[in-house]
């Protein structure tokens, strides 16, 4: 197992979390510098720092000693000059990762950013929200956590190859690398992708619908049209000329939404979900946090690790997003 030293913001914290949960020795050097989070410090500490050794210090000599013993250094800073101020390139560790908003080179390497400004610059924000209103940002730490995931993969790849390297990760480029078909749509179809609230737009119906006790989201790609008609219990729609192809469904989107709304508003989420399972269509209910935490499927798949925090509170923490079985999983789960 590797020795990892993590310094800086949430991307480093998430990268370190992946290492810690994968069984590596992780030391977090806490210099007290983190931007305000979307959640309390206590929650973030529980989520990111479990299984790590935390050392609160800004003492350069101590930090130097820690990094000398590390196989991997993860340094997440507000800009390129901050990385240089740490003298990262002179540290002796095998794998060194610098995570910054814009990368270590380029004219904007010292620009400042947060998650919301990077989502705006990376093309995500323009696509979220309603057409006639201000765009919506994505709350939370998507940018940091995805950057941390890329950092983890890069470091593990170098460790697999037994090769030293210094890795430069730009959070803006992470956002852009994870964009859907936005840029090719512009270059190849001359279309600037636009925002349409909950409507995915080019696949109809793909939208959020209100029901008796909440909301559900439906995503009917063309191959699911016939099962969807069965789901609505409106078999006559199969022969309805307005809806016979996705292109025609796009043209008659409002009429189809109206029909769907009228069916779903009289049903509960569980009734709708049951029908969706029977008809095999892709549908998901909008769940509260309590509902996610109580979800039977997740519990039976052992998604949660119970932990007692320093203040005595007991919480459920999600395990790693993946499960590794050394043998066939039939008896491992459920």
């Amino acid at each position, binding site marked *: 197992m590797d020795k990892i030293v993590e310094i800086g913001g949430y991307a480093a914290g998430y990268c370190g979390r992946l290492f810690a949960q994968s069984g590596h020795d992780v030391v977090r050097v806490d210099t007290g510098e983190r931007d305000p989070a979307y959640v309390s410090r206590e929650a973030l500490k529980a989520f990111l720092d479990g299984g790590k050794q935390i050392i609160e210090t800004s003492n350069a000599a101590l930090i130097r000693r820690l990094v000398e013993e590390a196989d991997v250094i993860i340094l997440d800073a507000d800009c390129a000059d901050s990385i240089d101020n740490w003298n990262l390139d002179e540290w002796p560790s095998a794998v060194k990762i610098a995570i910054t908003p814009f990368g270590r080179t380029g004219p904007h390497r010292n620009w400042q950013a947060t998650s*919301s400004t990077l989502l705006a610059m990376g093309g995500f924000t323009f696509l979220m929200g309603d057409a006639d209103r201000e765009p919506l940002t994505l709350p939370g730490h998507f940018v940091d956590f995805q950057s941390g995931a890329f950092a983890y993969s890069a470091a593990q790849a170098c460790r697999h190859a037994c090769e030293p390297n210094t890795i430069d990760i730009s959070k803006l480029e992470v956002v852009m690398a994870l964009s859907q078909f936005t840029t090719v749509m512009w270059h190849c179809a001359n279309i600037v992708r636009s925002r349409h609230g909950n409507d995915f737009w080019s696949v109809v119906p793909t939208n959020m619908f209100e029901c008796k006790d909440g909301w559900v989201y439906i995503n009917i790609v063309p191959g699911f049209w016939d099962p969807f008609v069965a789901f609505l219990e409106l078999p006559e729609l199969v022969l309805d000329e307005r809806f016979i192809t996705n292109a025609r469904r796009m043209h008659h989107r409002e009429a189809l939404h109206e029909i769907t709304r009228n069916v779903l508003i009289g049903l509960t989420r569980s009734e709708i979900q049951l029908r969706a399972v029977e008809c095999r269509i892709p549908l998901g209910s909008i769940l509260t*946090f309590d509902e996610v*935490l109580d979800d039977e499927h997740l519990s039976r798949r052992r998604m949660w690790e119970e932990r007692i925090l320093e203040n005595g509170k007991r*919480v459920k923490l999600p395990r790693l*997003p*993946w499960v590794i079985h050394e043998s066939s999983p039939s008896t491992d789960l459920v």
Partner: protein
Amino acid sequence: MANGPLRDVRILDLTHVWAGPLATRILADLGAQVLKVEAPMSRGPRTYPGKPIAGFVGGHGGEEPYNKNAAFVKLQRNKKSIGLDLKSDQGRTVFLDLVEVADVVIENFSARAMSALDLDYTVLQKRNPRIIHVAMPGFGLSGPYKDWVAFGPTVEPMSGLTHVMGYSCAEPRSTAMALPDPIAAAHSVCAVLTALRNRDATGKGSLVEMSLHESAVSANGAWLVDHQLGAELTRLGNAHPSMVPHGIYRCVGEDQWVAIACRDDADWIAMCGCINTLDDELAVHERRKKRVEIDRQITRWTSVRDHNDVESLLQQKCVPVGHVRRTPDMVADKQVQARGFFVPLDQGTPMPGNPIKMDGISNQDWTPCPPLGNNNREVLSSWLDMSDEEIETLYEQQVVFDRPPN
């Protein structure tokens, strides 16, 4: 084929749509030898009835429209392609021969698909005990939902994200971008690397389950913990629970906006130096109380200015700001241009690059999306040592192919 630290890793890629192909693209960018194993109709029919969602690379489909679908092509750089009919006995045999000389098999079929092909982990492991099989079904391989149909947009609201995303409590919003897909993609790469490192240590292969649902839930972990600790989390629109101001503000021009965020008092004071109607003595708890009025004053200032001017002025003062870029602005961005992020592959189409920069990796040796079955002969010959005659027989039997059926 890209160079990089994974150059000794052979991956059989059975993935489709977005999450899986994005994962294997990232692995290929890190140098892995990714062989896309494709079914006869994996790229659609030989002739296209209309235009695909993001158009064709080069603007038109030409004689092989199935090889030109831009949304597909975008995800396939640095890979090789073999057209192989896994539903035929002979195709299955060839696939298992490939498994024997591969390191990773990755697929994002439904939970029952690999068993239906008699190619589940038990079968793969018998053929190659060191194989790593990454399964990416929507809800995992077990549990009450394992056979539910899942796509990114329908999994997203089940992860808890929609509980906090929207304009207000009464107005929930989806990203409408299938966000669980890129989350699962990035984490699948983490999972592959974790399993590879485990194998480096133990010599043993493994089955890796990477559920679209669980990766999205895990990404929302901090909120789920905060909720258990008693926090009242709700939809805040573009506001932030701690940063004030924090929002998306209108600029001059149609649908032009900037995102601005003040992380602390230093940002606030710097911002007040630009917008003289703001009171630089307001501490964050006071700003929180006056959030609406502050947003109004900022809008008054931004709405008569060009978004580029607002961006450069506030960045000069070290305040986090970014104008809300549309696609053409993204590609033209000076910073990503200077770093060569977009790479003109596939008839000059700029493709989003690799955010991992390190020695030994360069986009100079990248290869574009291979045509369907482009590497049939090369792979069967070099990986499996097949003769030209044997390969020709596979073509005649339509076990391997390089275009969709009529």
